[in-house]
């Protein structure tokens, strides 16, 4: 057991101390802070007006043919907390167009009212991709017109309010396993992020394992090690060491993310974050995320160690890992496509296929109210697979680490087992 911890420590610390690992971790931490403050950074940048090319986008020049719309429109915009300022322009339409194309002004608005109190408005800007300002103006004008027409029809403001009273619309699902629409959209964001984290982590750390094993083999230090410690112990100590490192790294990112969000000016319950459902983090979803990350990692890391033990040169690692990479990518495709329809048949089936379980079963657990036996069955199948793969992997590993020469194909598994067999 002491050997196990010696190898565990060695694989943990040598990896944790490498420059590349430290730098990657720092970059991600910086990235998390940047992302969590993105909205305030964007608004800061907009305030400074860096991207506006000098012209002020919050000022809109207006040519009001009716002569009576400018004032109420400004009031309407102010009421909806828009920061747009309207300015009456004395220039002709042609002159204003020229100014827009020369980027002296950002945009201008032409307003008129016909005899039926219908407002005609033309918003002119350099290109049609502008979205926010025209929408705000349109909404304000719509309200304005409603008021105008109501006045001409002698409707009181109460009657207008009655006319536009919103309906009550609720969505209910009959299926036991489905969550309410509100819960679902909240869960979706969180599950989306966690699927991505699991996918990335399983992929990244498994690759790390394969590289570690291949490096030890190619530097030929392996033979000394396995003459001291059994290859099986070596393999699992290494997997556990790198796994712990991975778990700590992700936990660090989690804590940093939490701190960053708490300290940032962004409001957790609004905007982008409400879409991701962070306002209402479900504990069980987080617990399942950790479980499926660990199991997924052990499954793929064992496979990666097995494959890594077959190559003699680190250059060949990626080639041999390709089939494994495909498995992870397919699993992520199923999981991401299942976000929209977690009850689809193929998602259900895939969630019991061990190589897909970590991502797909997690998706189902996160998105649906599953009876508890379903995830437990998935976990059980996964555990059995890990066990079988561990047993098989250690047999291949035993021989594989002694095998040198041009080995780049999966056929070598057979050779390795022969070499390693009792």
């Amino acid at each position, binding site marked *: 057991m002491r050997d196990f911890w*010696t190898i565990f420590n060695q694989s943990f610390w040598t990896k944790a101390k490498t420059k590349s690992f430290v730098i990657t971790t720092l970059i991600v931490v910086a990235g998390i802070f940047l992302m969590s403050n993105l909205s305030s950074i964007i608004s800061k940048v907009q305030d400074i007006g860096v991207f506006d090319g000098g012209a002020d986008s919050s000022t809109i020049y207006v040519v009001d043919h009716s002569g009576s719309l400018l004032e109420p429109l400004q009031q309407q915009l102010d009421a909806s907390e828009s920061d747009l300022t309207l300015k009456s322009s004395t220039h002709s339409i042609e002159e204003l167009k020229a100014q827009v194309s020369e980027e002296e002004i950002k945009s201008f608005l032409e307003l008129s009212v016909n005899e039926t109190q219908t407002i005609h408005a033309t918003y002119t800007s350099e290109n049609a991709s502008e979205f926010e300002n025209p929408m705000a103006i349109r909404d304000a004008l719509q309200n304005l017109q409603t008021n105008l027409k109501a006045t001409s029809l002698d409707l009181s403001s109460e009657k207008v309010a009655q006319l536009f009273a919103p309906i009550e619309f609720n969505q209910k699902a009959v299926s036991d396993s489905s969550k309410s629409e509100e819960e679902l959209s909240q869960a979706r964001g969180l599950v989306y992020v966690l699927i991505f984290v699991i996918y990335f982590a399983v992929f990244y750390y498994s690759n790390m394992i394969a590289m570690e094993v291949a490096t030890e083999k190619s530097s*030929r230090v392996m*033979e000394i090690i396995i*003459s001291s410690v059994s290859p099986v112990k070596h393999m699992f100590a290494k997997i556990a060491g790198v796994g712990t490192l991975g778990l700590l790294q992700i936990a660090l990112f989690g804590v940093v993310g939490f701190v960053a969000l708490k300290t940032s000016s962004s409001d957790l319950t609004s905007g982008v974050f409400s879409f991701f459902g962070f306002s209402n983090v479900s504990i069980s979803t987080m617990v399942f995320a950790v479980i499926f990350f660990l199991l997924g990692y052990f499954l793929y890391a064992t496979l990666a160690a097995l494959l890594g033990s077959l190559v003699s040169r680190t250059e060949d690692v990626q080639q041999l890992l390709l089939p494994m990479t495909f498995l992870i990518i397919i699993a992520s495709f199923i999981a991401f496509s299942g976000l929209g329809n977690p009850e689809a048949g193929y998602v259900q089936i895939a969630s019991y296929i061990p190589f897909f379980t970590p991502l797909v079963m997690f998706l189902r657990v996160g998105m649906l109210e599953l009876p508890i036996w379903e995830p437990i069955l998935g976990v059980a199948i996964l555990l059995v697979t890990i066990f079988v793969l561990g047993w098989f992997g250690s047999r291949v590993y035993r021989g594989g680490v*002694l095998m040198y020469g041009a080995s780049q194909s999966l056929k070598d598994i057979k050779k390795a087992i022969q*070499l390693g067999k009792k």
Partner: protein
Amino acid sequence: MTLQIDNVTKKFGNFTAVKDLSMTVKQGSMFGFLGANGAGKTTTFRMILGLLDATEGSITWNGKPITYANSTHIGYLPEERGLYPKMKVEDQLIYLGQLRGMKKHDAKIASNEWLERFEVPHYSSKKVEELSKGNQQKIQVIASLIHKPSLIILDEPFSGLDPVNVEILKKAILDVQTEGATIVFSSHRMDHVEELCEQLIILDHGQSLLTGSLREVKRSFGHQNVRMKADFDLSFLQETTGVTSYKQTIEGGVFQIGEEKVAHELLRNALTKGDIRYFAIEEPSLQDIFIEKVGKEHA
């Protein structure tokens, strides 16, 4: 504490790497493994260490097979040298020492002692990849000796070392032997084996061609050499009965003979022709035996 190898055969598929090998290495002795490339030396070592399992036969150390339960008593220098290139020398020695059951503290002390002994204490905090090949090899030799093993297996320990370092290593090996360790090593260098080993085996194509103590091996070879120097041509003497081969040298010639009395005959015959400046009966060198035995197999 003997290393006992009994009728060991190792097959890889249809290929037989080692065939019916038997030998005994007594405790505290130095045992030489000789053999051409691909003779089965490394495979035998790997079987002794338990990295490979014998297809047939048994290998025991101290009456028990070598497993990971007693691997802390074994020291191993693989033929293919390798260490962690990016790890510091000291860290590496401590790590490998720990894997052989040492405490971290003891491993640190021992690694410093050994670096001192090999006259490279200043490499302690260097990365292995910064060292020359010969120095890397020293570090690896230390790694195989640091935990005071009782059985040491060295696969080609001298290859790649300069003469000064060969002497340092020889002395270190002899020292650990005096401390009671049993040492098995392979080499292509016959002079090293001749100098260090009491016992040896010559392997060829996985089979033992010769085994025993150095004296037995030489005696059983059945040949001796007679070296003569004279101012005249000695080639007429090769017709003498009992001479199995003759090699002309610059100053005279070397005759290979079966029995010692042939040497007297040769001397008498030579003196009839003129003065002999040099005459000696020499034991065959291991080199001669090896080339004769292995070369014949290949011919």
